[in-house]
Each structure stands twice: as C-alpha cells, then as structure tokens.
C-alpha cells in the first residue's frame, strides 16, 4: 500500500449561469482529465478530477460534469448560492477544499488536508474568486494560464531551497503568456523547504484563459460520484445582497457580421485619421471593427469619439478578448502576436495590410498587402466601390 499524500486530486471550480455551464468550465474539465490521466499512469495512483459547483438546483449540472470528465462532483445547493457573491462563495469553496470528509466520499480521505491542484476560470468571476480562495487557503496562484504540464523538477532557489538543489515531485508548470504576446512565463507554486522559512503551499492553483483548452467528448456512459455538501453560512455574510441583475448587449457584435476589420499599433503615426480610414473600410463591406490588445490600453491620444467607440476592451480580439471566425478578416497594422492570432485564426479568408513584410502576421494570412494603410485603404475603397455587387438577387 502506497503512502497517501496530504494533498490529493485536482479540484476544478465550475462556473455556470443558472445551471448552464460556461464553456470554460468544460474546457477546464477536459484539460484536468488529460492531465490526471497522465498523472495517474505515471505515478501509478488514482487521484481524481473533482468538479466543485455552487448554485441553486444544480444537481442536473453535476451529472453533465461527469459526462465531461469529472470523477466526482462536490456541490453546494442553496437559494443563497444562486448568484455569485465573492464572500460566501469563497467561504464555501474553502470549506469544501479543506474537507477530508468530502474527499472520503470518492477516495481514501484519511490523510487528506487540501487539494493538490486547483483550477479556476480567468474571467470576471473566477479571477477574483481564485484570488480570495487562495488567500484563504494561503497558497500560490498563477493567472491567465494557457498551457499546463506536470513534472518532477530539480529546483535550486535562494529562498525556497536555501540554494540547495532539491527535487520537487508532481509540480504543476503553469505557462502564462505576457502582455506582449511574445513571452511565456512559467510559474510554479513551491513549498518553502528552507528551514528558516519552512512552509507548505498547497493547492498549486491557477486561473485558465477561456477558449484555450478543448473539452473532452461528452460521454453519458461515464460514471462518477456526486457529493452533496450542505454549507455553513455566517449571518453576517448574507448581508451582501444582489438587488438586481440586467442582461446587457454589447455594442460590438462580431458574431452576426460576415467580415471583421481589425487594427493594431500600426495606426500610430496618425491614429485619428487611420482609425477613421479603417472604420470607412469596415463600413464599406459591412464589417464589425476589432482591435488588438495594445489598442485597448489607449497607447495614443485620439478624439473622445474615436476613443470611446473603438479603443475599448469589448473590441479586443485574441486571448485577452474575443475569439472570432468571420468569412473575411482584414488585419490592418497588426503585427500578429500569438495572443491576437489565437483569436482570429479560424477566420475564413485573411487579408493583412502591413508595411513590414517580416511581421509575423504574414504567416497567418492568405493575402499580404505590403504598404502603408494610408495608401492602401483608399485604393481598396475605390476598388470595392467599383466592383460592388448589384442589389439584384439571382435565383
């Protein structure tokens, strides 16, 4: 019999809207399944993928989560948990993460202290929830991850190991693209083994970028354990009240447009005029306008109208924004950082307008128009108007 670890299993915190899972939840489960299958084979163990669900009337969702790869689902069902409230959610999830009794429902929980790994979504809810849960569990958290590997690593670190080389088994390598889209930083959450600051940090946790990982195929033959947890609420915590919830439609609509025209930092020389040109091009072909991430950080001054219409986070295409797949994608002055490409590579036909033939976008398009957008777009507009199809509908 092998020794049980204090830290076991991979807990995935599921997000849903009234029982309907948000896509990233199934994506996280898929990646968790793949990782733990590899883990169990490699270490001859039987650690579980455990989905954690808070909500009101979510039993049905729990069954779905098993079809999508969970070995076990721990759920807390209460009208108080219908909508997300950080304070209560953090307490309930932390109670679940610390419960050996719950872990005993699907494994030998005798040594269980906390999960080995933990996943959250890197979105409006999960970003904050992961932060507060890991503050409560007093462990490390990496955000916006798009690649995960489990490895045994030799670590030599001034603080963690006091400069000694030590082996850290079953370490989760959490890869995070940086803001430029060109660098990948690998974050590790490691125990302090230096006697002066000795401390264990578990779970190793991260938030995962939506749209990156692929769910596993839904299989109704998959079996798992569903565990009902009755949370303890503190009266005071229930004083945080949700008074109203309104669904808002974004002014940006990528989905119902056949074409998207996006611009990036290439507009820097005369941003006001260039963005107007891009908008004119978009209007001509009834396209929606997209931007690359750096534009949403408002790197140059433009008029208020242009700023509030175009340089807004809602328009960002890429890993930090939306994933799109129009029939026609025109990238104007976009260099082609990995993060942007990830958001548009499924497009049908891709045209790039760029001065620099060496920019990475050249490898991601079907037509690369070399030139200054100030010269190219007016010529394109002229041609578009000349060739514009007639209204005549052919049968």
């Amino acid at each position, binding site marked *: 019999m092998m020794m049980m670890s204090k830290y076991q299993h991979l807990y995935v915190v599921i997000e849903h809207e009234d029982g309907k899972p948000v896509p990233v939840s199934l994506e996280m489960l898929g990646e968790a399944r793949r990782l733990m299958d590899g883990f169990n084979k490699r270490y001859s163990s039987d650690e579980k993928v455990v989905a954690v669900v808070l909500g009101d009337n979510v039993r049905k969702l729990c069954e779905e989560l098993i079809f999508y790869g969970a070995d076990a689902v721990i759920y807390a069902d209460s009208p108080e948990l219908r909508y997300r409230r950080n304070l209560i959610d953090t307490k309930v999830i932390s109670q679940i993460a610390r419960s050996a009794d719950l872990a005993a429902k699907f494994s030998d929980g005798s040594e269980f202290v906390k999960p080995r790994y933990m996943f959250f979504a890197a979105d409006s809810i999960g970003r904050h929830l992961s932060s507060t849960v890991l503050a409560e569990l007093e462990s*490390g958290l990496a*955000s916006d991850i798009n690649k995960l590997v489990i490895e045994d690593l030799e670590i030599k670190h001034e603080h963690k190991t006091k400069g000694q080389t030590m082996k850290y088994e079953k370490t989760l390598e959490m890869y995070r693209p940086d803001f*430029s889209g060109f660098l990948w930083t690998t974050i590790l959450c490691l125990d302090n083994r230096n006697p002066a600051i000795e401390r264990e940090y578990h779970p190793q946790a991260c938030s995962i970028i939506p749209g990156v990982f692929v769910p596993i195929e839904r299989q109704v033959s998959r079996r798992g354990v569903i565990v009902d947890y009755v949370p303890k609420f503190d009266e005071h915590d229930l004083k945080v009240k949700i*008074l109203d*919830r309104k669904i808002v439609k974004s002014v940006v609509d990528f989905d119902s447009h056949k074409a998207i025209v996006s611009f990036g930092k290439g507009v820097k020389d005369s941003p006001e005029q260039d963005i107007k040109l891009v908008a004119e091009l978009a209007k001509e*072909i009834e396209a929606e306008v997209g931007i690359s991430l750096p534009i949403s950080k408002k790197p140059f001054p433009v008029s208020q109208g242009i700023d509030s219409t175009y340089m807004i986070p809602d328009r960002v295409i890429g890993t930090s924004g939306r994933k799109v797949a129009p*029939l026609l994608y025109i990238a104007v002055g976009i260099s082609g950082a990995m993060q942007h490409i990830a958001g548009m590579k499924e497009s049908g036909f891709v045209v790039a307008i760029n001065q620099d033939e060496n920019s990475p976008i050249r490898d991601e398009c079907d037509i690369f128009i070399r030139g200054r957008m100030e010269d190219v777009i007016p010529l394109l507009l002229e041609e578009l108007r000349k060739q514009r199809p007639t*209204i005549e509908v052919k049968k």
Partner: protein
Amino acid sequence: LTINNLNVAVIVKLEPDFSEGNVSYNADGTLNRAETKSILGPHSAIASNAAFYAKVKYGARVAVSTMGPPIAETALQQAQLLCDADELHLYSDRIFAGADTLATAEVLKAGIYKVEGGKVDIVFSGHRASDGETGQTGPQTAWKLGYTFLGNVIDYDVDLQSRLVRAKRLISLQGFYDIIEEVEAPLPVFISVDPSYKALFSTVSQRLAFEKYQKEAKARAENYKQYLKVLNTQQLDINPKLVGLPGSPTIVYKVERIPKAKTSRKAEVVDGTDHEQLARVTAMMYEVLGGMVIK
C-alpha cells in the same frame, strides 16, 4: 466626529508607461524595461477617480497607498493630483522586493491598518496592473483585511446613515451575455474599479465641490512630500516571513519566447500601390463574402 464621516483609501501602482512614444520594445517584441519610464498605472488612475468621487460627494478623507521602492512616490503624487488625497503612504522595504500577489497583499493589508487608525470604510484598487496583469492583488488584500470584495464596479454610492454601499458591477462570461448586477453591502468594502468606470457629478453643489477639491489637489500635489509617510517592515508590524520572496508561494521558473504555432496559411504578397493587384484582391474579398446583401 460625526457618524456621517467616510474614510477611503486607494491602492495604486507605479507601472511602465505603455503609451506610444514612451514605451520601448526590444527587437524581439518584448518590453524594454530599462528604456521605458514609469508612471501611475492607468487602472490606478481610474481607482483614484473613484476615490475622488467619494471626496466630492461625501467629503471623504482620502489616503493613497502603494508598495514599492522610493521612486514609487511619483505614483502617489500623480494619484494625489487626481483625488486630492489627505495622506500618501509608501510601503517600502528591501525585503518586500520580488513579492508575488499573496506577499504583496500581506504588505498592503498591514498598510491599510495604518491608515486612519485602521478605520477605512472603502478601499479602492484598479482592475489590474498593466505590467503584471494578474488582477489578484486587490481581492487578496480584501480577503486579508476581512473586507467584502466587490469586483468590476462601474458605479457606486454610499448611504452614510445605514453604512451601506450600493454598487453596480459589470460581469462578462465567455460565450454568454454581459450582466450588470446591482449589489448592496455593509461597510467596510473593497472595490476594484472596472476600466469603464466614470464619475458623474450631476448637481451644482457637486460641481462646485469638484472644482474646489481639484484646485486643492493641484496645490497639494505640488507639495506632496508634506503628505507622504514612508513605512517599513517594522513600522508596519509585519512578519518578514510573510512578505517578499520568503512569503511568496510562487516563483517564476522560466521565461521563454512563445514558439511560433504551425501556420496553416501561405500568404501571397501583394504590392499595395498596384491597382490591378488590389482589384484582384477586392474581387476575392467579394467572392468569400458571397451572399452578402449590400444595401
């Protein structure tokens, strides 16, 4: 001392200036930190605006706090100009360096306890930093303080009598609609301000107060050192094991260039001044758009 008083604090960060002409990139597209100057981060500026709203509307006392090396006081000065801060706090100690979000939150928590004798009703932070971009430090500080965390806040008001905050939050879920949620919470709260936040001053008296405090802010920021307190580990009563590198669960293990993904396309390069070629590209574009109905 009346029951109607309000104390607020803003947590800010000095960040590389990503605006055009100030940011400098290496040949490989990565940020050249040595050549890029630092300023008050744009999200920190938005948080400062939210604090200024409390000053104008409720006459709140405002403190601005940051953790960083001595140079970070420029962020405090820039924030003071935005929110007419009554106090500026710099938490600075060599041992704070290299901290991850959890260890940073430990310092900020200790710091907020030193503001107004620990009687801060609302702490504001930005949505995320432009350099680190984790968005974790705010909520982790809130949790350590024991304050209710309200994220993505686009609007808020305070009822000074009942000591309740009402806030609107903008929630975006992948593949779903966006939601604006209105919440109510007892003070104290920690608010992380959404990038789309805009303070609105609707009444004449608010606009007058706005002008008065703006003038005051300008004068104060010119003499910001008078308002500045620098606090180290000892003055903050911090356990050194919980901050800096020793207090950070996470480390950066490696940094590498993201390998180029396999490309599925092979581009034809077209000269952008050649009318004939552009005519051909235009025809291709109309072809892929196919059944597009042109009005």
